[in-house]
């Protein structure tokens, strides 16, 4: 087995050798547990585990998943050293290729997968991650290859097929393209153009003058620009609202807020309340362990200290209700709508500023 170290266009393995694969999954997909195990540290299991078994079948006999490295989502996304430790566990297996995920739209898992792919690329380890194009972690993969997966775990089958197909492309030393399901940032490659830059530039100017506004050699990423609101000048007179995506609702979830992929937001009264009683409120968010939030709801909606500060005159008035949704796998479209509706609702009711707590 001979490895080729240089540049783009490299094949990972020449001849008939077996491609050694390490697979990364979170605590849930290795069967360690759900949110109760989200804080578990990086660890390694020999061979394929869980969805890795199906991935091994799809990859076929030219690939061998020699180990599965896993970590809890809280630990992997929240502890600064976690990604380095995960990568070290993978590197000890001397993989030709590190396959990561699929992470679907899971925020913490996606963030960990993207960071791991980027760290592996920096360390010279070939890596390929899979997640949904709307995963908030995607950007952190940098220029490491990422292939599109489905939105949710029930799309595991087709997502693994896409990952396996893309793994073949990467293992063959080819650049992953949009046709392969590549998402995220395009990788820079050196290619020979048919015309010198000056000729192409003049052609583009002529095209622009001819009314073509879209032609470009450098498509710019489209980000939503959020114009920051001007600062509040008179906090002592202003009404301030508490809003959250932490899924905190009255016990029993009377309005049936969705725990994932929420399509709605709700409002609950704070008027006359100084505290949110333990047991009277509950987080239904499906994306993190709600044990701490349920034990003390102020960990999500800080009514106790906000009321205290209102009493001291630090703010004019605390808004009479809090607005809430569960930000877990929420589509970008819905999230944008919630934000606009919240802003409009708060403005109409006279609130001048809002503190958004997010998990």
């Amino acid at each position, binding site marked *: 087995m001979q490895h080729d170290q240089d540049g783009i266009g490299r094949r990972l393995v020449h001849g008939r050798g077996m491609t050694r694969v390490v697979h990364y999954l979170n605590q849930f997909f290795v069967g360690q547990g759900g949110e109760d195990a989200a804080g578990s540290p990086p660890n390694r299991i020999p061979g394929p585990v869980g969805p890795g078994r199906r991935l091994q079948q799809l990859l076929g006999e030219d690939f061998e998943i020699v180990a599965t490295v896993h970590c809890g989502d809280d630990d992997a*996304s929240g502890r600064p050293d976690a990604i380095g430790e995960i990568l070290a566990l993978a590197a000890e297996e001397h993989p030709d290729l590190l396959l990561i995920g699929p992470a679907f739209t899971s925020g913490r898992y996606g963030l960990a997968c993207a960071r791991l792919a980027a760290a592996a690329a920096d360390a010279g380890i070939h890596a390929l991650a899979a997640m949904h194009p709307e995963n908030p972690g995607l950007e952190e993969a940098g220029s490491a290859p990422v292939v599109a997966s489905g939105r949710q775990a029930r799309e595991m089958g087709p997502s693994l097929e896409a990952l396996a197909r893309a793994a073949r492309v990467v293992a063959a030393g080819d650049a992953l393209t949009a046709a392969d399901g590549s998402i995220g940032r395009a990788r820079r490659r050196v290619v020979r153009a048919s015309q010198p830059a000056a000729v192409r530039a003049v052609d583009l100017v002529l095209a622009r003058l001819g009314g073509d506004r879209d032609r470009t050699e450098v498509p710019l990423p489209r980000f939503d620009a959020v114009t920051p609101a001007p*600062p509040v000048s008179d906090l002592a007179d202003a009404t301030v609202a508490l809003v959250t995506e932490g899924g905190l609702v009255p016990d029993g979830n009377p309005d049936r807020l969705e725990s994932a992929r929420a399509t709605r937001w709700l409002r609950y009264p704070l008027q006359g309340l100084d505290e949110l009683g333990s047991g009277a409120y509950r987080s239904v968010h499906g994306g993190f362990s709600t044990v701490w939030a349920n034990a003390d709801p102020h960990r999500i909606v800080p009514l106790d200290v906000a009321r205290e500060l209102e009493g001291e005159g630090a703010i004019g008035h605390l808004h009479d209700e809090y607005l809430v949704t569960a930000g877990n796998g929420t589509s970008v479209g819905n999230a944008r709508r919630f934000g606009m509706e919240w802003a409009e609702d708060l403005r109409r009711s006279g609130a001048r500023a809002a503190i958004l707590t997010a998990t």
Partner: protein
Amino acid sequence: MVCNLVSVAARVGAPRIVPARGIPYPTGDPSLSPDQERRWRRRVVQKALEVLTTPVTAPTVFPIEGADVG
């Protein structure tokens, strides 16, 4: 915005960001005693209020001074 995943918040354009200590408890810290935790929460909310009076032109992170101590 008070949250733990600061880089995500900045990337999606949250203008004013106060870092929290953990994903599941933006305005808490269960490792502290109840009294200490309430003091910590007060500091987080006070910081958030201070930040609301601060002009920004782009996503800006406002760490809480001395955040390592309870």
